[in-house]
């Protein structure tokens, strides 16, 4: 079984006692405990300010899977950010250095993950962990 582990630690001194949360999960296929996500797509792009791009296409992934998406804004200028959208619904903004890890249902063909760059040319890395695609036939 392919085993992909996603671990995270959050530390904060916002409250009176320093806080640290650590969590680890093994990324499994939907509803199973013996079959891990075994495929991935990864990439890097530089996106000019004002440019929108479909970062990940929902069309071929299938509905209701346990896909996971990692996106990091590798920019270093703190004013640079990318806006993350699913089907044109704004999820949030990843500022320089920020990252996200999100489950993605790819619920229909419109549920692409889109990014729009702001302020400057943003540097973006991304990885999709998934269960497989329906490959399209050659025309």
């Amino acid at each position: 079984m392919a085993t992909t582990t996603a671990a995270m630690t959050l530390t904060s001194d916002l409250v009176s006692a320093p806080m640290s949360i650590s969590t680890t999960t093994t990324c499994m296929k939907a509803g199973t405990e013996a079959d891990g996500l075994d495929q991935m797509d990864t990439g890097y792009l530089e996106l000019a300010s004002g440019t929108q791009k479909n970062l990940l296409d929902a069309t071929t992934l299938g509905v209701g899977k346990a896909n996971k998406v990692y996106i990091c804004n590798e920019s270093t200028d703190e004013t640079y950010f990318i806006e993350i959208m699913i089907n044109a619904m704004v999820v949030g903004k990843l500022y320089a250095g920020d990252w996200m890890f999100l489950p993605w249902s790819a619920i229909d063909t419109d549920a692409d993950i889109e990014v729009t760059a702001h302020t400057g040319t943003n540097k973006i890395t991304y990885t999709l962990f998934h269960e497989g695609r329906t490959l399209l036939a050659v025309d």
Partner: protein
Amino acid sequence: MAITAAATFSSAADDLTSDALTLSVTASLSKAGLSTALEQTSGLARTNFTVGGTTPFTSKIIYRANDATSNGANKVYLKNMSTIAAQYFTVFIDQEQMGRLYAGDWAFFPWSAVDGTEETFIVTIANTWAAGDTWNFDGITTTAANSTVADIAAQIHAQNYPNWTTSISTAAVTFTARVAGAAGVVTGTTAITGDTVTTADDGTAAITSGAAGTRSESDIIVVPSVATTMDLEHMLFKQ
């Protein structure tokens, strides 16, 4: 103050790739466009979902857009505490499904928290009031202690309303809904529903200004996959 979010994604050799894969990232969570740290948090929470009925089961709003600064660099952490592989939470932003968190899965993502607008109206105490007259709204009854309209307005302002906050200017009290939405209380620029004046003379509590609200379109909503008990761990970092 500082908040650090670190993640590592790893896979052994010949699992996802022929060689072992490790991807590590660390971020200091800062305010939008600044190098200063986020300063507020909802605190770590655990919410139980034990719901009735049939699928789709009852959802819960984990965070309302009201809870954070719109278009801020807010971050949300979610974790499905279940250990049963088939149990998952479906995570929505408003009506848009983002994804399913299966047993043990966690998520960490930015949240723009684009808010709607709160309903608001102004009630102005006027004409002749007497001690003992009342004004009722939102389940709260204010009984005039004397006949001075400014004093009665101050009494109304001093109440704690379950669904509204207030501010005051002389005899005019401005009500603002605690949560954004088109709740239907404000029915026009000079009319609301649910207020009652009881006066011995010709005292009035006229609505002198009002504006309907609009609903938020980025509340974070979670739906469990089963009606039996499931727990969600969650935390919000916000500006």
